């Protein structure tokens, strides 16, 4: 019974890792940003809109992980498609790892950069553009991981 379903088990594990790891990273990153935002807003409530944007930047990795997980679920017989063989299941698992791992790490580091940018905004409220650009740079690597995962999963 398990051998018959091994493919779907591997594929589901991949989908779970993509959503769980990237989502956890985003939760940590957004949480860090939120604490810094609260610190600034205690003294300068007028900066709410700007610090909110900076806080939310590390949230994208969670969305990327979810997107990859949905595509996998749509191809392995859960939301559509057909159940994969064990080999195909392993390929799905491997395809999910880039966004899972890079999503986790990049979201945490983007959170730290967002914290620093929120603190920069606290000192120089007119530096919003520059403050936003710095954490946005970290996003590049999450997007690269998303592309690899998404392209691979859709080709399987």
């Amino acid at each position, binding site marked *: 019974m398990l051998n018959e379903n091994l493919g779907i088990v591997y594929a589901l594990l991949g989908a779970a890792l993509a959503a769980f790891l990237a989502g956890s990273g985003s939760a940590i990153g957004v949480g860090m940003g939120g604490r*810094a935002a*609260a*610190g*600034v807003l205690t*003294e300068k409530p007028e900066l709410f809109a700007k610090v909110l944007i900076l806080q939310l930047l590390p949230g994208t990795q969670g969305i990327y992980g979810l997107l990859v997980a949905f595509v996998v679920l749509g191809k392995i017989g859960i939301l559509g498609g057909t159940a994969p063989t064990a080999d195909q299941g392993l390929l799905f698992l491997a395809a999910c790892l880039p966004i899972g791992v890079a999503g986790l790490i990049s979201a945490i580091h983007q959170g*730290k950069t967002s*914290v620093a940018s929120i*603190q920069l905004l*606290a*000192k120089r409220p007119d530096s919003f553009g520059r403050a936003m650009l710095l954490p946005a740079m970290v996003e590049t690597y999450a997007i690269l991981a998303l592309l690899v995962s998404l392209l691979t999963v859709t080709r399987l």
Partner: protein
Amino acid sequence: MKDYIYEVARIRVMENSLLTKADLDQLLAAPDHEAALAYLADKGWGGGAGVTDAETMLKAEEDATWALMTELLGEGRELDILRLTRDYHNLKAAIKDIYASSGLAPERLYLEGGTVPAEEIRQAVAEENFGRLPEAMQEAAVQAQQVLSRTGDGQLCDSIIDKAALDALTAAAEDAPDPVLAAYAATTVVNADIRIALRAAAAGKNAAEIAAQLAEAPDLNRSALAEAAVGGKSSVAEYLKGTPYSALADSLSRSMSAFECACDDLMIDRILPQKSEALSLGPLAAYVIARETEIKSVRLLLTGLQNGLPREQIRESLRQCYG
């Protein structure tokens, strides 16, 4: 490891209110003491307009800094190392107050904001119940009180407690939760050691006697410092050039107040990297040190203006700004 994201973010906003060099220049350009006070009141010092007494204003600022730290850290004792010297000041004041029955108002003798309430220290000394004091203080308190009651020598009493304070700082630095606090302790001990060494040398003490009075300081060799002190300020300056405190060497040849100023400036130099630190306790410690340093500068400036000192002389005593 604990992080201080919320706290540092709030401190970043508060740093905008620190005085800058331009502010100090404005204060120096004030026609008199009252105009300088008015300028500070406009900047929000002492709670805004209406404060006409400099000490009331400065005390309000000191209290506000520690009130903010209490709000941010709650019952946390992470920054206790910055308050240790207040405890020992209060211990000295209590021993002398009770010995001399001075009858002076407590607010003129004691400093608030120590790690132990000043009243508790006073009571412990009055009742000779030294067990109520922190452990590190007990032995020095007993010894200082005995010396004072036996010899009446206030200076000797002070030196016993000063040495205990420096030893406590050195010990606290070893477990300091942040390198900034360890740097603060080291700079404070070095500053004190050099002053003690030069004073003892001027009083005709030999190197061994001087070394016995010095506290252990990182990067300074007590015996070498004591030997140098016997040779005077120039040989201490020469010795310092071979240590991480070489920045202090030149100031020694000018005056002791220039040396004090150089010590504070060195401390500010050491906390400057905290401006780019986002998560640790360092920026909080740096803010407290920066506030205390700027309050010291303002106190010197206001006193200078009140006494009609030349502006250039006042300027030389002003510390570097962190803001």
